[in-house]
């Protein structure tokens, strides 16, 4: 994971990336590199700066320090960067009064996807939700809403998918379905950053894992170096005592 250790062209690379809010430091000095098909699982306690980092990578938040490139676009990015990103958070980002299909179709149109209606239906089919396409989102269960949300965020075939605690509020079968879908995305070459509290689910998908605390990456390693059995202990050590 340490930059330079691998050849190739990183899809996400940052150097000393940081963000202050007024005087408060939310993220500081984050340096990482991810290639096509990589998935970074990002762990850390609340307020560690995970969401802030994700929003910077998504082009939703302007970095105050350092530099970064995502999908070939220099941060803070612009229209071109946003076109390459799929952003999923624990909030569904859907309009409850509109149907699943309408929500996804709107995004498809805003991203300039060809034949947006068909693209929306295909995205729903991938999430096994084609039969609920015309149902208002408010009538769907939380798990289904989350699947619609993922279909929405990936309808334009983004190179990079950023996920902010997507497992929140999902039951076991929902989590399993989400995990399977993310694995498929990764296999198709999508680069992902996955922020989560669920260490097992996160590690199952990850090619890299990192722990964030107080705005900084305190541990960062490649997947083959991670032992899922002991990682929870490692995590606890870092979160309680690490610096």
């Amino acid at each position: 994971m340490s930059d330079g250790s691998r050849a190739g062209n990183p899809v996400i690379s940052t150097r000393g990336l940081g963000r202050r809010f007024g005087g408060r430091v939310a993220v500081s000095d984050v340096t990482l590199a991810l290639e096509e098909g990589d998935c970074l699982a990002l762990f850390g306690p609340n307020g560690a700066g995970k969401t802030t980092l994700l929003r910077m990578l998504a082009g939703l938040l302007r970095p105050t320090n350092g530099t970064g490139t995502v999908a070939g676009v220099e941060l803070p990015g612009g229209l071109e960067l946003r076109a390459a990103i799929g952003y999923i958070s624990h909030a569904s980002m859907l309009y409850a009064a509109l149907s699943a299909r309408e929500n996804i179709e709107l995004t498809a149109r805003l991203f300039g996807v060809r034949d947006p209606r068909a693209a929306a239906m295909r995205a729903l089919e991938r999430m096994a939700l084609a039969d609920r396409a015309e149902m208002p989102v408010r009538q769907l269960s939380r798990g289904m809403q989350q699947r619609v949300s993922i279909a929405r965020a990936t309808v334009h075939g983004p190179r990079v998918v950023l996920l902010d605690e997507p497992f929140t509020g999902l039951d076991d079968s929902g989590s399993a379905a989400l995990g399977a879908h993310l694995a498929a995305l990764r296999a198709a070459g999508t680069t992902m950053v996955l922020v989560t509290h669920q260490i097992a689910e996160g590690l199952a998908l990850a090619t890299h894992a990192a722990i964030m605390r107080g705005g900084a990456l305190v541990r960062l390693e490649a997947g083959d170096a991670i032992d899922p059995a002991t990682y929870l202990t490692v995590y606890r050590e870092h979160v309680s005592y690490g610096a």
Partner: protein
Amino acid sequence: MTTPSVPATATDAASVQRTGFDWLFAISVLAIAAALARVIYYTPFEAVQGPAQKIFYLHLPAALDAFMAFGVVALAGVGYLWLGDLRLDRAAESSAEVGVVFTTVVLVTGPLWARPVWGTWWTWDARLTLTLFLWFIYVGYLVLRGAIEDRALRARYSAVLGILGSLLIPFIHLSVYLFRTLHPRPIVIKPSAPSLPPEMLTTLSISFVAFTLFYLALVRQRYRLASERDLLELEEGR
């Protein structure tokens, strides 16, 4: 104008700079006292309005400085959106607060003067109405500031409102003015005669300078308070 006490634990470093004699504040108070003395003892009564007219030496400088204060809010707002420097936001915040105080002075002294001269406490005179709306706009500005936790967001939204508020002023003035001229009122005594006698003009100028010094002193104090608060928030990690 004393600075409120800050918990000693958090801002010992900051408290060092705020002790010390505020010479600007002292000078401005003296200047106001001198100006008032001149208003009361050395300026003649106005022939028609009598002693009531003397409140005008308080009223007009306060109004002019209030306008200036809101101009500073708008300029600091433009500057903040451009440069993102929180010092500009603190200047805007301080100037807005002092401006509201000055506007309040205008709104209190206006009716005090209007009662004996126009025979009514309140009148929808174009300038008084404008001042009332200024007061509403910038009280709204302060309410907005109080309703936002995030420091940078507060600065940004305040800048936007401060700029829009300054754009609004000419429109309010124009619509209120046209409204008045189309509904002429029976009593029309202009609060300011076209040309003042030199003695009165001198008094007015002195008073204006005194009020401007007072404005600067208050803004400076308020700015220091804002700096300390920002520092405190920083130390508390908010």
